[in-house]
């Protein structure tokens, strides 16, 4: 049987090796990204497609959670990817490429949300007919109540984006602040509120309480 100190050493060694491997992988990804970026900046379309492929899942998650519609998510991402491709030569590398892409996607989504909300102020009959049924299926509502997705959707979009980028994507506060165009303190504030609201929503769901 290994001694306590021996076990501790082995854990430390394994943890250290895992850390080294993670660092190596990260460095590899960064190197691949840098190579693709250099090629994409010369107008290499395939390189650009590969480049955005590295971040596509995270960007899909952000766009989908902000817009809550898969079709609009795709439209927004196409618009954002086109904008990025056109602006690629102006990308100065002050932030990571991923953060830069997050900013473009975030801005496109917020534009769409703004258009959506301004559109709802002058509702025409035709548009009103397309809106979701004000009395959705009760079974569907019950299923959504215990859903983290629904709790997330109940947050304001800016708060949603913050908690997604920090807690789900693991981005640091400064990067998120750059994406959102706000001070780091605002990121902390939004994150704190978002976490609190999410936990409250989820705990109320589990206890069967009605949400307002």
């Amino acid at each position: 049987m290994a001694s306590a100190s021996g076990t501790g050493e082995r854990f430390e060694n394994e943890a250290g090796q895992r850390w080294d491997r993670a660092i190596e992988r990260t460095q590899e990804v960064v190197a691949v990204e840098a190579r693709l970026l250099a090629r994409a900046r010369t107008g290499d379309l395939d390189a650009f497609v590969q480049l955005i492929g590295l971040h596509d899942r995270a960007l899909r998650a952000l766009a989908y959670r902000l817009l809550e519609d898969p079709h609009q998510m795709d439209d927004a991402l196409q618009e954002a990817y086109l904008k990025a491709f056109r602006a690629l030569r102006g990308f100065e590398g002050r932030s990571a490429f991923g953060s830069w892409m997050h900013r473009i996607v975030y801005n496109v989504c917020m534009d769409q949300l703004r258009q959506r909300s301004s559109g709802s102020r002058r509702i025409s009959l035709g548009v009103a007919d397309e809106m979701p049924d004000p009395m959705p299926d009760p079974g569907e509502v019950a299923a959504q109540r215990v859903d983290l997705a629904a709790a997330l959707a109940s947050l304001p979009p800016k708060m949603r984006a913050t908690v997604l980028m920090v807690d789900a994507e693991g981005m640091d506060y400064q990067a998120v602040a750059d994406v959102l165009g706000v001070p780091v303190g605002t990121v902390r504030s939004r994150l704190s509120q978002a976490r609190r609201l999410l936990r409250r929503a989820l705990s109320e769901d589990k206890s069967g309480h009605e949400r307002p």
Partner: protein
Amino acid sequence: MSDREYPQHSPAAAGRDEVLGKALRRLDVPEHRPGFDAELRAKLSATLSERDADPQHPGRALRARSRTGRARHPSRWTLGLAAAAALALVAAVAVALSASAPASAAAVARRAARAERTGTGLPPFALTVVTVTTPGGFQPEPPPPRVTDRIDYAGPTLWRDKSVVTEPFNEGTHAITRIRNGHLIASIADGRVSVTRATRHEGLPFTVMAWQQAALRKLLAAGSSGRCAPSASLGGDGPVIDGRPTLILQIGGSPCPSADIPQSDGPATFWLDKQTFLVLRAVLHGPGNRIAETIAVTGLRYHVRFPASTFALPKPSRTKLPACRAAISLPDLAALERALVRPPLIPGSLPGGLRVGRIDGSLGPGSPGSAHCKITAFTITYNDPAGRPAVQLYEAPRTSPAVRFPGRAVTIRPGLTGTITSGSHMVILWWIQDGRYCSLQTGGLTAGVRLTTVPTAHLIQIAASLRSTGH
């Protein structure tokens, strides 16, 4: 708020955040829609073409855009995009289009739609066009699966269009010839000739060819700037078709899908004659991104000189056909029963406070109409308690080609199975009962009516209660 107000997390709080992060990462993220990558690549290619086509300032179009890497500055974005748009205009003019060619994809779409609809910019020509429509979309009155048109076009008021139409279930073919000579249009079908005065909307063979409505609609939508305008991009030079250089126009899926002409809902690619913008080839996708319609032109010749006899109007047939109206609006269910060839199947109960709204009858697809002008197909629109159209019931003869599209099998009641399909904010249930094709739809747009949504269970409940009223 300053950082001081947010003390360092305790280990317990950090653990909770980690749990929350893991849960957030596990949330489903939708995959891209089918064709997303192809659409994106086409758009990126178009962007590259714009840049490369600017002979004076290669690469300027890209440099002129905003510096997205900095914090967001709306004015910079606006200026950048405006500059880009202006440069794209310059670049596109420099492409091998003619000097007066439109620059943007939307302008190309408008120009093509104008050529198809009004003949603008078209010299005298002759061509054969084959339109193939695949089954699969919801449509109360679908176009026939294959139509071959031979068109001799001398001008907007002098043309001849001979269509060979394949019947929906390949029962056979029939030919319809239309000749326009001045203000008169002669129609020759089944040996009968009728001559009518041309109306304002009945000008060109293209507009008469109902089976090409999906393509025209797609082009018009792409050329518009409304809420329902799909994305459009120029895909650069296409192959030479019938000796004509082509230009590829790619149009994205419709933001406002319609059940009436589903061929125009998905993305589409058009190969346009580079000089005249005539559609030489098109592939239109419908629901599920399946190919819904293809158009192919062969035997195209421009500047053709036709003998005068080509457009000579034949004498009309002497025997008069009964003047049946193709579509009528009916005041109530009793009137519907009287107008039908056979008794309708009517719901015995209506859930959710639905009430009978509008009732429309029509000569069903493939039915020439009986001697008594009885109708064979009808649509009843049911309104919700707020008076908004919510559900439509459509019935037609069993052999009707309407709506044989795949979906999920659902038991309506013991011994009766239907097929349910949902998507694009609409749900459609269809089945065959007592020799009739029946469908119920909620949500979406159909037969020109926009429907609100009721639960799917209500559709099944209505379907299960359908019974014949008897005459």
